[in-house]
């Protein structure tokens, strides 16, 4: 009785009970696919949130004025500063370029790498040779802004410090703006007018995708004085973006920034500040912690579905073997060695759980290609291995163990089994 023969017996055994074999396979399939998909959805949403946060820029502090109606720019995210009271004050000062310069001072703020003052003008009409587009947000700033806010150019170049000093009218536009104004043309070097003022396109930003309800690609970025001169005037800044020297120094940079601004704005003791510092890293930490909880929760749900699936497999395997104890007795009576019987049942269990498991992996992988509830699932290889491994192991054990016990019975005991 060779292995091939045993395998053929197993196939025949499965074919003899098509319905049960099918249902067992289906049960394993669903269990495995559910675990893979569940983990993939969890991972997908976790990654999406992390990406959204990272898109705002790494290691940065966003300082905005506390007196203005809205401060204008930014990613639409605002956080309360440590100071509790944020009511209007008579002596409140706006943020100025001088404030920004003070923050860039290496002796006062050693943890600060770059400082980018920002003014923003909303809904600016841009025109190129008859094509028009309303740019959601025109930002005037320094070149360091691109790195600090994580906005690399895809083609063309950034503007330079020279451009800032000379208040040149150059602009780097987002993907949406480029598409609406130029279509398939190359925008680099072309002249457009924004709010009636001519600008030369220096570069096009890399596509960022939409962050929440805002299209992050519907922007244009120009040198600060150029925007102030032509569009916003020389009033207070909307924001100052401060980039820390490293991820570890963000908190140090925050306290340096706070003490410099407190000194410059005459804020001391209990008095409420007239600005807010929004710490990117702090938000990221909070979200990471929340995501950790979320992942644990999903993992628990996945583990439970695996457990339930496993109990299902166990059940069917036990019933199968118990029901077939008589058959085992007959096989023994005609001279089947224990090994051949055990081999057959093990092979049956392996085939059922492997086929079911692999189909489950296929369904899980296929399903994760689709967007589920607004989340693009991301496959986690570990979950595939775990789900497949656990279901196959359960199938093997609960198919093999009772079969082994039945094969050990004396033929007459197995035959008398009801």
């Amino acid at each position, binding site marked *: 009785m060779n292995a091939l023969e045993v395998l053929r017996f197993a196939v025949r055994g499965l074919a*003899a009970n098509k319905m049960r074999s099918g249902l067992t396979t289906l049960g394993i399939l669903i269990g495995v696919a559910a675990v893979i998909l569940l983990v993939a959805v969890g991972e997908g949403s976790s990654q999406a949130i992390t990406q959204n946060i990272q898109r705002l820029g790494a290691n940065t502090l966003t300082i905005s004025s506390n007196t203005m109606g809205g401060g204008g720019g930014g990613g639409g995210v605002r956080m309360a500063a440590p100071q509790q009271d944020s009511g209007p004050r008579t002596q409140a000062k706006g943020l100025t370029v001088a404030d920004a310069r003070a923050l860039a001072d290496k002796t006062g703020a050693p943890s600060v790498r770059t400082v980018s003052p920002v003014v923003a003008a909303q809904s600016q009409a841009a025109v190129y040779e008859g094509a028009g587009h309303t740019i959601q947000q025109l930002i005037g700033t320094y070149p360091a802004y691109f790195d600090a806010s994580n906005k690399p150019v895809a083609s063309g170049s950034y503007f330079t410090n020279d451009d800032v000093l000379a208040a040149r009218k150059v602009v780097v536009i987002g993907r949406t703006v480029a598409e609406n104004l130029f279509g398939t043309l190359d925008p680099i070097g072309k002249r457009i007018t924004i709010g009636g003022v001519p600008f030369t396109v220096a570069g096009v930003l890399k596509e960022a995708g939409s962050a929440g309800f805002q299209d992050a690609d519907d922007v244009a970025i120009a040198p600060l004085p150029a925007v102030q001169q032509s569009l916003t005037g020389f009033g207070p800044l909307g924001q100052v973006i401060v980039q820390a020297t490293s991820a570890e120094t963000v908190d140090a940079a925050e306290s340096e920034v706070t003490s410099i601004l407190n000194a410059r704005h005459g804020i001391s003791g209990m008095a409420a500040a007239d600005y807010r510092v929004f710490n990117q890293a702090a938000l990221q930490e909070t979200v990471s912690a929340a995501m950790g909880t979320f992942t644990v929760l999903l993992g628990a749900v996945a583990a439970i579905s695996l457990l339930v699936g496993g109990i299902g497999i166990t059940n069917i395997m036990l019933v199968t073997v118990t029901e077939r104890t008589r058959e085992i007795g*007959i096989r023994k*009576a*005609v*001279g089947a060695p*224990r090994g051949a019987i055990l081999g057959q049942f093990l092979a049956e269990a392996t085939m059922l759980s492997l086929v079911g498991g692999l189909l489950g992996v296929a369904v899980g992988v296929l399903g994760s290609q689709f967007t589920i509830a607004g989340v693009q699932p991301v496959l986690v290889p570990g979950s595939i291995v775990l789900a497949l491994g656990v279901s196959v192991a359960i199938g093997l054990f609960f198919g093999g163990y009772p079969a082994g016990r039945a094969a050990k019975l004396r*033929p007459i005991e197995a035959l008398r089994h009801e």
Partner: protein
Amino acid sequence: MSGRPEDVPPVLDVRAVTKAYGRGDALVRALRGVSLTVDRGDYVAVMGASGSGKSTLMNILGCLDVPSTGRYLVDGTDAGALDERQLSILRNRKIGFVFQSFNLIPRMTALANVELPLAYGGLKAGERRRRALAALSLVGLADRTRHEPNELSGGQQQRVAIARALVTAPALLLADEPTGNLDSASTRDVLNILDQLSMAGRTIVMITHEDDVAGHAKRILRLVDGQVVEDRRRSPVAGPPPKLAGVTA
């Protein structure tokens, strides 16, 4: 016994076998010291009241069960001294067992059921098929090879079971009430087959309640309360079975 050359061991040699089921209050002594030998070519009917221990004895003879005490030799080998693997080979090669309740494997064709012992015996598929078909036509079922047990009558199922027991050409054919579940026509078919096998020199031991059936055997054993109380020879071991004696004479 008589006329047996000393160097040929009997097919069956049962020595002071007892079998007890359960323990304490529930102890049942099904066999209380049975000794008997069966020579090659004999055709034995075992009779006795219900509960006298016939099936218990038969299961021990078929190596499906083990005695509580005593020794049992098949073809000269001590079954009690064999390990699990050797026992399965013994069951496969030397013994063919026919059950009262057929015990065919459901959802497997008659042919596959008959091939089963050959498969465990390690025969090649072609040879297996050839011999299984031969055994099936011997029991008159050449036209039912593709049927599954639930598509066969009781008599046909029992004939498939006999074909399965015969297909390995075992030294010993054991049948526990082979006609117990059959009508008179099917009974006649099955007994005919057994007579033919006996005629061909096969050793047969069968259990029956019916005197008619026992009348086919060369020798009749009677069991009472787990002991052999009567051992009657009706025709010689070497000759044809009684029902065929007239035909050949």
